[in-house]
């Protein structure tokens, strides 16, 4: 009994076509942020520069995910999945930190 199954994503017109943002402009902004974070790196104040750099890295990541990977136009669920993945890592970090970060080492002779 012949069984033809059309895989619906195969030759379907891009139903959820939602246009492409101006990639070049976003690329420009990203390079700008990169240069900015390098400049911040020269700043004397250590703690401020580290937090700024990671902040800028986070902004870059969110821009890449949002615009290049079109997460902005995907259903909300996918965004929540990504957030949960990062949250799971956060849970892991704060669950383990008291045991690894705040314990001084002493090697038994």
């Amino acid at each position, binding site marked *: 009994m012949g*069984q*033809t199954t059309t895989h619906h994503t195969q030759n379907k017109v891009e139903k959820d076509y939602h246009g492409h943002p101006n990639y070049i402009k976003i690329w420009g902004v990203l390079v700008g942020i990169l240069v900015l974070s390098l400049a911040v790196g020269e700043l004397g104040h250590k703690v401020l520069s580290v937090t700024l750099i990671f902040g800028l890295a986070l902004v870059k990541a969110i821009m890449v995910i949002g615009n290049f990977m079109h997460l902005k136009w995907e259903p909300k669920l996918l965004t929540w999945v990504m957030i949960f993945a990062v949250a*799971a890592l956060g849970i892991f970090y704060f669950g383990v930190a008291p045991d690894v970060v705040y314990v001084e080492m002493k090697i038994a002779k």
Partner: protein
Amino acid sequence: MSTNQTSHHQMTFVQKYIFSTDHKVIGMQYMITGLIMAFLGGFLAYGFRMQLAFPGEAIPLLGKMTAGQYNEFITMHGTIMIFWVAMPVLLAALGNLLIPIMIGADDMAFPTLNMISYWVFFLSTVVLIASFFVPGGAFAGGWTAYPPLSANGYTAHGWSVGLGGNLWIIAVALEFVAFLIGGINFIVTTFNMRAPGLTWFRLPMMVWMMLSAVLIFMFAVGPLIAGAAMLLLDRTVGTGFYNPAAGGDPILFQHMFWFFGHPEVYVILLPTIGVLAEVMTTFARKPIFGYKMIIYATIGAGFLSFVVWAHHQFIAGIDPRMATFFSITTIMISIPFSLIIFASIATLWKSSITLSTPMLFALGFIGEFLIGGVTGIYLGSSAFDIYVHDTYFVIAHFHYALIPTVFFGGLAAIYFWFPKFIGRMYNETLGKVHFWLTTISFNLVFFPLFFSGMAGEHRRIFDYSMWKSLMTPEIMNIRIISTLALIVLFLSQFIFVFNMIKSALSGPKAEKNPWKSNTLEWQADSPPPHGNFAQTPVVHRGPYEYSVPGRSEDYWPQTSAN
């Protein structure tokens, strides 16, 4: 996506059975590999239990056992039973067999990827079995592989020494890859390929549980894959991730392992709760009690399972304040699961129960799992865990939680869907004999271990003759009873194998819907052809409309219009 289905030519034997992309064949391949590995794991248990009951004497079929071999056997028993029996049978086999047909799809979203996932799993099985015959033998550091022991105590030596351990890590990593690929297939199929009318709250409980099990597995396994890679580098290249002398920390691996370990036991439990819902509603002719309540409890337990892991490490050197936090979350996570068990008991209220073999196994699961769950409260309390951690009390607890889930739940599923996927009825009396033998011997093996654990019998000890307090006649008798009962448990599984093979070859033909059940797979032929349904089914109602008042028949299939 592979498009070979469209040109449906006559497939050769290899394409049809070995490299098949049909979800039912792949499900059967997982099932058979899992069951064979179950016998291997059971044989290892026979080996080390004989050594425990009759220390130092030659074991039939195995000869005298040395301490190194003993560690090897217990490590491999744990690894095989969790990773090569529980997950393939409950997650991959039932998932592959049931998800597409239960949601009215012709196959998985990515059939070729599904086939690749089985063969990556098969490769990991070959690597694991090869690690037995490698010089130095298989890995012997406990299935939890805590460094520094699992990193050979950081005495630097290259690939040759401890090759068994390296193969063990590679086999487990390959198996994780296989289940990640399989998991993604399950998720996308459940999201995208449900039959028209099959909304989220009309999905059978089995599909819900499979989906949440795979999601929990995916998010929990990440850190352990990173940890295993770091451990492999420690063992071979000589880095010092967990080597205190080099600034590493052994406790980090324990956290990584149990961050995965605890959600893992829920990954194994959830498919069985799905099986429970299908089997009990069919044989009690009654809707599941609180369909939405169970689903919300499962989702809640899914999130909670990520903040519970350190109850395995109360006395492993973690910060005592953390132990209080984890003790509270451990007690909290017992709430959703007690809710699910109470709801399944409530399903039996005012029902009309036929005690066929699948129903016996499902009810057996509830009866035994209650003991497993109840003893979890002892261990969840951090203070009492000081005394019973790493003793036989823990072993008895987790066997009472895992064996009902894997064996009773798995066998209930196999007996229940055997007519559908093999097309023939199994022998009912043999099934019942198998059930009663398994239940009685299982209880005889593990219930006494609670007591020897209370007496302070600590784990993974090859020969207790050095401790007078553990060589009292009562404890010696417990070890002997438990071992003899294990032999009975092991042998009674051959009744199951005989029943399955005989019925598959010469059992009476099974009709489309032998149990008068509602879900979609019972509307397809048995065994369902390639592509499952001639016409895509349209779903009109939920899966558990049994004994609806005002209807002559006491079941109402999801697809029937009136």
